């Protein structure tokens, strides 16, 4: 049997957020993006944990930036989506779109 791993909801949103933010994809903007999408506070620690898991799967890569004074001299860690990550997101979109097409329309059912 082939080994499979499916993208979870948080992983999918994270990949989309990293892709959307482009070169500015580091902890704070990613967490802010997630808060905007999900409508509730997001733990930056869990964002990092998920991003590290995605990095382990080869779906994102990270690199350290320069330290800045407003961050207390601590460097930013930038994330970038890989080709494999992009492929996975596309594949997920394709599958979800196909599944959504089978969703019944409540207006039609009323008729």
């Amino acid at each position, binding site marked *: *049997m082939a*080994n499979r791993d499916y993208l979870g909801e948080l992983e999918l949103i994270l990949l989309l957020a990293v892709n959307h933010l482009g070169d500015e994809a580091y902890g704070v903007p990613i967490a802010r993006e997630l808060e905007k999408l999900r409508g509730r506070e997001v733990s930056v*620690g869990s964002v*990092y944990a998920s991003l590290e898991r995605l990095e382990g799967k080869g779906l994102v890569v990270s690199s350290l930036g320069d330290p800045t004074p407003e*961050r207390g001299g601590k*460097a930013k860690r930038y994330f970038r989506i890989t080709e494999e990550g992009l492929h*996975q997101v596309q*594949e997920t979109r394709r599958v979800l779109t196909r599944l959504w097409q089978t969703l019944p329309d409540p207006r039609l059912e009323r008729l």
Partner: protein
Amino acid sequence: MSRMEPPPIASWMLEHCIPGRRDQALAGDLEEAFQTGRTNGWYWRQSLAAVAVGWMKYLGDRTALIVFALLWSMLAPAWTAIVERIQNRDVAWPASVAAWLVLNLVFIWTGMLAFAGMHRKTVFAVHARKLKRAFAVAAAVFLPTYFATYVLANLFVWPGIGVEWRLLQPLGEIVDLGVRADVLRVPYLVTLLWSMWRLTPVLAVAPAVTVEWRSQGIDAAEREAEGTPEEMPLHDAAAAHRTALLLVTAGLVNALIAGVVMCQLPQNHHPTLGSLAMRAVRFVVIGSLAGWMGTYVYWHFPRHSIRNEPPLPFSLFALVCAVGWMWVPAMTLFFEQDSAFGAGVAMVAAFLLVWELRRILPALSPAEGEQTAPAERSLFAESLYRSPAEPYGFVIALCLYGAGWAIAEESNVMAGAMLALASTMFVVKATVSRRGRLRPRREFGRAGLRVAALALPAILVTFWALLDGVAHRNRLAEVNGVGLEGAASAGDHARPKKDEKSSAHSGSGYESVVLWPYPPKKEIVAPVQPAPLLAPGTKQPVVIRFNGEYWYLQPPDVRPGPLAHRATGTPLDVHIASANSLPIMMQAHQYLRSPIAVARCREIRVEVENRETEPGSIVLAVWLKKSSAKEGAAVYLGEQPIPGAGAGNGAGTLVFAIPAATKVRAFDEISVMMLPDSGHQRVGPRVAIEQFEVVPR
């Protein structure tokens, strides 16, 4: 504190309390967000969540190691029992300790190799050097850990965990979850975790798995050409396998619980065959229904996808599983009698259950690709053919040998588990499953017929278990000297309550009394007449034959309490031992009909009979008490060693002087306490009080 600075304690936690290697990016992100107007509360929440997530990830990466170490250390008491058996006690201490250490390290190293073997692609190939280092760390860590555990155990469990190692059964030790066994597992667990902790991050960064959404590998164009709709199966083989295992296990556990709780032997000691047959039918139905209920709960569990799109009807699944569940009551009845037939029933039940399941769950069958015949390869067939690896054959053989050993050691439950595992593996691996599309209606009929055909053997076996169980119980009762005449006529309600009362308390730290003798005939003792002692001028001693009770108690009790054990027989004929690490103290109490003035007594002679064969000293202490006086008011007469202790040489008399002036003016109770030396603290002394002689002043 300035608003521009985040809470220092939270910052410190971020820096120091998150395990593993971590850069400063997270702390920097939080600080940056704080500078943009976030509150202190937000910073605290984020910090605590980061610490919690960090620890969960850190431990989660090592789940495999932690689970393995726990399972392997479960075997440690069994290994210790084996080591105690094979180790030569005549060897001097440096060599004996070295041999003991090597044997234990062999156990730990074997565990490490087994773990590494399971993950050989990540550990052996890349980090063989780290594995060697882990071996050395284990060798260095084990002895100090063992010593520290020993010291702590002796500090917290006074006076230490005394164990008769040579009496322990290795198989029984595996499932022993008592304090002693758990304490013994600690050094092995710590050593395994400590030595292999650094290896596991290698496992955490194992190569990423390719995501594959299309499971069938059939092109959509081909589907369209065939005119078949494209399917997105919700269950793959592994998921179906896991779900089936969960459902069957849930049903099995429920059936086992029902078997233990509801399937009991009849109360009547001589039931009729008809009543037993009816009971057997009822038990088989109970086992099947209980299994059905257990599976039903999980089948309809909201989280299971099987609930939304079941691959087969639940009723068919339950009907198929019933061929296994119906044997559970018979199995539990046999196990309750310590009969090895229970293991055989477990094997048959597992065989039938898995055999039937394989018909309806093709996912349990091996993949097609595994059965490719070498003959199909016309070219280089001989050179390319590799004989398939079949480790399950060895596992089945090991299970069979292990089951035989377990039966020989009278560990029938373990034997049953091994035989069930062997038969399950045999059916799964060595038989061919059904091919083709499942036809529920046809399978319904077939499963119904199979259940009907197997119900009769199951009822007969349950009937046999009941018959055997009743005979076994009656035999035990006869051996224990409990009269059955009354019980036979009046059912179980007439069971002698005296016997229940005098048996050992299961939860109070005492082992059962082995073979209580028939209660001695009640001796008619002349009432104690204290009057002559009170009369001035009396010179004859008053003889008081001991007809009181013996009490066995453990610290911190100093007098008989609710947990004390009262023995109605004589200590000479019984054997009472502590089932835990605490010592046993024995007391004997003789009550008088009327009080005696202490001032009128010169001395008291205690006549004892000693049949203690173990060498060592036993001290006897005597108190005189007034039962109506306040607590603690007693005359302590001192203590003396019992003559001939250890030689088992019969009777002796101890003389205790009674002071003329005491706080207690009269006494109506004589209390005696036996104080054995440290070597005999866990066994009740075999010393009996024969009589007291109170000598007038």
